[in-house]
């Protein structure tokens, strides 16, 4: 039932992100008749870049608010009070957090999967010369590499209010990206690069280093989030 709670809490966020991505695709697809489609390799690369940014945004936006009830477009009234109801249930705080993180992770995967499949289907230039196995590699890389940022947002969600969590995490991500441009990371640690310059789309192989870094970051940060949730008061 905690899964149902997580889904009801986040479904509008998921629909919003999907609507933005699929709306943008529809615009480019229909716009092809008027010279606004994906008609060159540069266009295709820009689209892949934009998709990567949207995946990272989705990972942050769907990360949740720790064990507190998350605001949605529909209702923000009574959110904090309902956290007391959650805490009165016979369930551990760690389990509450684990289910919420799992719901957010799965929803991020859905965004990545759906947007990739639609882009590959509608735009041959985005698909390029990549094979089905390349596509699976890209999906796997994207799942793993967004997980790290997702976990940063999960930690932020344990103590920051919703908007602060989203903006705080995004500002942290942009700052980190800027830092990695100024002071390049070794390729094994460059999670951003694994989804752009060193992506399987270009290398035709899995970037194991960044994947391991991101998954390690995810595990460590979720453990930190669990410790915060168990320690703090409501």
């Amino acid at each position, binding site marked *: 039932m905690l899964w149902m709670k997580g889904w009801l809490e986040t479904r509008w966020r998921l629909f919003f992100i999907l609507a933005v991505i699929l709306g943008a695709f529809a615009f480019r697809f229909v716009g092809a008749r008027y010279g606004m489609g994906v008609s060159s390799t540069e266009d295709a690369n820009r689209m892949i870049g934009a998709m990567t940014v949207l995946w990272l945004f989705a990972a942050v936006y769907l990360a949740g608010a720790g064990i507190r009830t998350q605001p949605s477009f529909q209702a923000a009234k*009574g*959110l*904090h009070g309902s956290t007391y109801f959650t805490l009165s249930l016979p369930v551990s705080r760690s389990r509450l957090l684990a289910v919420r993180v799992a719901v957010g992770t799965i929803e991020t995967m859905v965004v990545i999967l759906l947007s990739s499949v639609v882009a590959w289907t509608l735009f041959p230039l985005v698909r390029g010369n990549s094979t089905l196995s390349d596509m699976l590699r890209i999906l796997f890389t994207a799942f793993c590499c967004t997980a790290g940022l997702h976990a940063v947002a999960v930690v932020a969600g344990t103590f920051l209010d919703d908007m602060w969590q989203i903006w705080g995490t995004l500002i942290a991500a942009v700052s980190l990206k800027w830092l990695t441009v100024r002071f390049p990371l070794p390729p094994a640690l460059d999670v951003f690069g694994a989804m752009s310059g060193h992506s399987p789309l270009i290398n035709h192989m899995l970037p194991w280093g960044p994947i391991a870094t991101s998954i390690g970051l995810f595990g460590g940060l979720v453990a930190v989030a669990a410790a915060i949730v168990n320690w703090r008061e409501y």
Partner: protein
Amino acid sequence: MADPVIEVAGLSKSFGGQPALNGLNLRVPAGSIFGFLGRNGAGKTTTIRMMSSALKPDAGSIRVFGIPMGEPTKAINARRRMGFVTEEKDLYPYMTVEQIIRFTRPFFPKWRRDLEQRYLRAFDLPPHKKIPDLSKGMRSKLMLLLAISHEAELLVLDEPTDGLDPVSVEEMLRVLVGLAATEGTTVFFSTHQLAEVEQIADHIAIIDHGRGVVQGSLDDLKAQYRRLHIVFAEEPPVRVRWLDGVEHVHQEGRTLSVLVSRNVSAVIEQARALPGATVECFPVTLKELFFNHARGSVECSG
């Protein structure tokens, strides 16, 4: 006294250096209807939030069914046997009445659908209505339904009648008395409505500035306390060295009103010995007890 269902020992809690609870002790007997009284900010909600493990004590402990609520894993077992109505009456705003019931049901293995349906009808709760569309009173009833449908052995209710109309208040109080009488459920509730406490509670505690000031069986307390009205022929004596047991003395004209908690006979004798005094003795009401012990509510002298 039999083993208490709730045992609070030396509970202290501060927020930003301001003490909310200051060494609170409580013993709530099994099967009792326990009224938890205090002024705004006295520490009632803080105590109740600690019972649900939302807050952690700075010092002291809470045991429910003998289970220390400070140990998260064990506290889960205690919460499985408890039902809560929180102060805010807030439930998930994106759910309907039916969805919140469906959500809550699996957490409690002893959930009884017959009770759920009975109270759904009795409280006139519309299953398909969204929670934000319910009044505060309706949300109170819904929270009570969620609390009692799993045969909770202990109900912890923070101002459960807040927002209810008088008919619904009576209905809710009747349900609580019925549960205590037929199921042996222990009911622990905080309220500002002294009349409700007087109507259903058999035990009370009054808390003031985070400290318990009175606690016990309501009948025993009423039997123990007396109000003396001492009328003088002349001006009352300015200073009287009252015997132990005098809680509060209030002068109005030539009359002294004296609240006595023990040594009643001796205090009556002392009063009769005062020059020109006529003494009358009355039982006390809960209101008098509350006003006397909730500090600052009345001017104290003597």
